[in-house]
């Protein structure tokens, strides 16, 4: 039977508590992985591994997250000009991270801010989308 969004959220929350050593109440839907939960670069790989394990129900069909699919590693160079995000880059960030507050990104156009926008609910969205596919 397919998991509900609440069930997916609970599993994601448990993964983040284990991977980041944070309290359950800190893992809110809007919490930024980097800014609020203190995730560092290696934590993103740890979270990916733990999600794969948590959402594998049949060992013969493991749930795999392709590299860069959940946590984009590099921005498409087409979205950056002279170190600043282009309009297309801003639009793509809004599309991929619909829940985030993009005001600072729109103001500074600094690509380095993008990882700060990645929030818990973006993981839940991703898993929900993948499980439906």
């Amino acid at each position, binding site marked *: 039977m397919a998991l509900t969004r609440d069930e997916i959220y609970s599993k994601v929350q448990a993964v983040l508590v284990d991977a980041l050593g944070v309290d359950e109440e800190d893992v809110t839907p809007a919490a930024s992985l980097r800014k609020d939960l203190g995730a560092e670069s*290696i934590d993103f*790989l*740890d979270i*990916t*591994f733990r999600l794969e394990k948590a959402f594998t129900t049949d060992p013969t069909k493991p749930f795999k997250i392709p590299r860069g699919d959940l946590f984009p590693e*590099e921005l498409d160079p087409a979205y950056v000009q002279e170190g600043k995000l282009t309009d297309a880059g801003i639009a793509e960030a809004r599309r991929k991270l619909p829940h985030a507050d993009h005001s600072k990104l729109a103001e500074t156009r600094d690509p380095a801010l993008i990882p700060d926008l990645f929030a818990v609910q973006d993981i839940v969205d991703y898993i929900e989308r993948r499980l439906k596919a």
Partner: protein
Amino acid sequence: MRWIWIDKFIEFTSRTSATTVKNVSLAEEHLHDLYPDFPIVPHSLIVEGFAQTAGILVGEARDFAEKVILAKISRATFHRLVRPGDTIQFRAKVDQLSEQGASTSGTVTCENDLVAEIEMMFSHIDQNMAGLEFPEHNFVFTEQFTELLKGYRAGGAVTI
């Protein structure tokens, strides 16, 4: 002194698991540094021995082509001290392995006593730190580490 905290492999299954042994001798200088009147192996060096065991396991999975570095100790729970005369066994298994790195877990025991339970992650740094420059040669897996595994595979770990 050489920075090597395992003496030999006693089991090795590629991409899956490895077990190593370390005999603790009172002649080791570090034992006298932490608590001079009560020599013990510091927990940090127990973690290092496990990291060397698991790190070689992860490195071998890709024929030592990757520079494998310890990136995160997810958990290290200790249950007892290790003292001179003890024989430590590090049992490590690969939980997940990808292009970017690996997660591993396992136990540390003395005789049949549980010393520690450890989970750690390794990163393939050339895959994860794009833009940073590292030496071309694999500075992680020096000869002293790869020789340990060669010795085991040649039966050298159990024969003279």
